[in-house]
């Protein structure tokens, strides 16, 4: 497996996203210019210029026409994926730490940061999935997280719920239409921030990662913790592999402590865990800073990781990767034949 290194960013990567067909990769970093790449060969297709602060988050709508980004310049922006043209800017009183489209692409949420006199909140906007349409400036819904700041959030299947992960390690379920609070669980250790939330392909369950060195698989409907993946390093990201029962976790020692340790001790590796047996089954090294985000191709051909070191490493899997099976899995597979 020879990774492709994408070195278009000058500063630490913050998020990496695949398009729904897996052919494009969107990357954002602290250097203010989001980029888009072809996943097949690592060629850069273009960039989106306009932000004047570190870009924290990116998402693309399901038909790959609209791109949303959120940044430290207190704006959330909408772009034309094909041309790089800025279509809409929403201004807020604090920076945007997470954006996500609903599964049908008709809603967009943004998670705002806490500031003095500004309560952290989750803002939902209605989106017209057309690049020429005039988008509404008014938010359709606002969920205020007064207890603990939301760090990550996303829409469940059919946008029925909005699930948010918080600074204090809890995961909350809100109603997707009214924004009403429904349920809350202490998924991770107290005061350990939830760093990432990524969905299974059908969005009936999701995976959260946390600074408490673990990742959890949780159901959408009743927030039941199904699986726990324990590691030895703070995690920044976790992704569910679509075609095989694997999960990929990424993390590493916090960026501020990195200079005091060697690359080996920093544990800057992507870790592969078996989704069902919760065992670690492999690691991929390469970054020389913590991994800030791992994203998996929805078609399962590759995965990409963005690191604090400013590189995106794009890995296309070898065939042996897909052949690996546990003894019981193999028995089950042969029994079925």
């Amino acid at each position, binding site marked *: 497996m020879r990774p492709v290194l994408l070195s278009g960013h000058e500063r630490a990567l913050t998020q990496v996203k695949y398009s729904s067909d897996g*052919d494009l990769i969107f990357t954002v970093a602290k250097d203010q210019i989001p980029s888009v790449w*072809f996943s097949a060969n690592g060629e*850069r297709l273009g*960039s989106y210029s306009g932000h004047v602060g570190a870009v924290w988050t990116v998402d693309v709508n399901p038909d790959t026409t609209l791109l949303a980004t959120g940044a430290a310049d207190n704006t959330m922006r909408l772009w034309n994926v*094909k041309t*790089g043209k800025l279509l809409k800017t929403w201004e807020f009183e604090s920076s945007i730490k997470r954006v996500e489209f609903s599964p049908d692409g008709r809603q967009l949420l943004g998670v705002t940061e806490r500031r003095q006199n500004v309560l952290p909140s989750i803002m939902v906007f209605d989106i017209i999935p057309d690049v020429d349409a005039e988008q509404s400036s008014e938010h359709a819904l606002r969920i205020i997280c007064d207890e603990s700041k939301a760090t990550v959030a996303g829409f469940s299947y059919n946008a029925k719920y909005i699930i948010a992960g918080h600074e204090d390690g809890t995961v909350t379920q809100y109603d997707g239409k009214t924004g009403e609070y429904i349920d809350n669980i202490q998924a991770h250790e107290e005061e350990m921030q939830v760093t990432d939330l990524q969905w299974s392909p059908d969005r009936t369950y999701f995976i959260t990662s946390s600074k408490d060195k673990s990742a959890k698989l949780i159901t959408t409907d009743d927030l039941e913790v199904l699986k726990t993946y324990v590691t030895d390093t703070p995690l920044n990201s976790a992704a569910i592999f679509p075609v095989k029962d694997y999960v990929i976790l990424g993390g590493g020692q916090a960026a501020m402590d990195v200079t005091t340790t060697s690359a080996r001790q920093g544990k800057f590796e992507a870790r592969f865990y078996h989704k069902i047996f919760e065992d670690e089954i*492999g690691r991929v090294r*390469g970054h020389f800073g913590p991994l800030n985000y791992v994203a998996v191709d929805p078609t399962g051909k590759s995965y990409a990781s963005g690191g604090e070191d400013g590189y995106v490493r794009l*890995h296309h899997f070898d065939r042996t990767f897909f052949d690996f099976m546990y003894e019981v899995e193999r028995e089950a597979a042969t029994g079925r034949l």
Partner: protein
Amino acid sequence: MSKAQTTQGRTDWAEDDDDDAITLPPTQINKNKDGTETIISYRLDDQGRKVKTTRRIKKVTVRHTVNPRVAERKQWAKFGVEVNKPKGPTADTTSVGEDIALKLSMNYKAAQQEEKSAIEQKKVSLKETKIKCRICSGEHWTSKCPYKDTMAPEGEPAPGVADDEGSQNEGVGGLGQGGSSYVPPHLRGKAGVTGERMGGGKYDRDDLATLRVTNVSEFAEEGELREIFGRFGHVTRVFLAKDRDTGRAKGFAFISYSDRAEAQRACDKMDGFGYHHLILKVEFAKKST
């Protein structure tokens, strides 16, 4: 030299200037019996020399079903900072990293722990080694021995072979104990502590599958070598020694394969192969001691 070849029959170099418009022979395409095609084409290179290219190709149709949306996006024009750049990845933003083996295994954790405990054991064994003075056999370093100026090391006539008991050397790193016994770093014993290399042995390669190629033309390039040697198997590393000032090849290269059998095959086939204007010499790289 090659200039002279293209302008055969001319005697006056001054006439070179106006031969920009050399008429190039048309491209020939010959169909071979075994289904391959031979294409002979001519072009002028950047110095105006005529270059003849002979290619033998076999056409294989590989059908690949691509989502129409994906196919459409492939044709999109570049924009933003990439605007007007040609198609294909550019070297400044896209590069290929070192080969990484991802081998999934059920007992990955256990294997890791074993590795760790091996390191621990080594540490313990290092701790247990006793310090022994070579002069008086006391428990201190030879260089700190109170008798070092008055007595010669016991049982050791010649200074310089200071290294048969490795344990004495750690700490001072094997550097001259009580005399002129400098030992070059690579000759110091195991305990001569070379220090942990960065990247944890990332560059520890399998010397058994590495070939040394000598008599390489100074115009050789790594990419070309990779291509040539890649025919025999999976090349994990190509190292072409280059002159730091001129950037030209120094005349030798190392090629590592992932498998010794492939390396053996490449060695057999490529030894004596004519590359550029020289004949390559290929042999297994000797393990450095």
